[in-house]
């Protein structure tokens, strides 16, 4: 399936881009992050991140669908 990935803060720095389209067989964010973290050498373990699909927070076991926008959210620092 094809996913649209957005990156923010240090993950964008590490990936070298703010977004990318990726073909992947990962059925859930859990598998997708494991795959992506290896490619971009992300230092965060998934336990430190939250994940959003199409603009809403979801569980790591959420079933992904073709064309989903997936965002791995590093710990936030607003305010």
């Amino acid at each position, binding site marked *: 399936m094809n996913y649209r990935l957005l990156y*923010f803060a240090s993950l964008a720095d590490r990936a070298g881009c703010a977004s990318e389209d990726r073909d992947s067989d990962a059925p859930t964010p859990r598998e997708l992050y494991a795959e992506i973290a290896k490619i971009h050498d992300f230092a965060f373990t998934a*336990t*430190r991140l939250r994940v*959003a699909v199409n603009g*809403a927070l979801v569980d790591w076991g959420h079933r992904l669908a073709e064309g989903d926008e997936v*965002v791995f959210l590093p710990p*936030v620092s*607003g*305010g």
Partner: protein
Amino acid sequence: MNRFRLSDATIDVGTERNALDHAAAGACVGFEGWVRNHNDGRAVLQLGYQAYAPLAEREGEAILAEAMARFRLREARCIHRVGLLAIGDLAVWVGVSADHRDAAFEACRWIIDEVKRRVPIWKNEHYADGESGWLHPDNTPAGI
């Protein structure tokens, strides 16, 4: 109802607080988060804020709706800046009005705590020594 919003322009507190007016309200508490010239012992020159806007607005709106339900408020608002900010700039504003000051103080504090904890916004500090870095406070039990 839009009680939360992101802004890439200066926040005008004088104008924004008018949204809190209510003839039955006797207390109004406002919080302003300013860009400080220091953090963790390092001199800071400026800050950049980045947001995942659609989710930030959804989460921010949810926090303010929760505050309206949890506390005896008349109104509540929050605006968070994005983009590049200088020392002294207003980064985030929270304002609430209530009949009594207990609820106003508690709700204002609760809202800024939740915004800092939940809303997907990240701060990039530019230090006097030329370095810069994204802040990712660790709020989870597991380390990196």
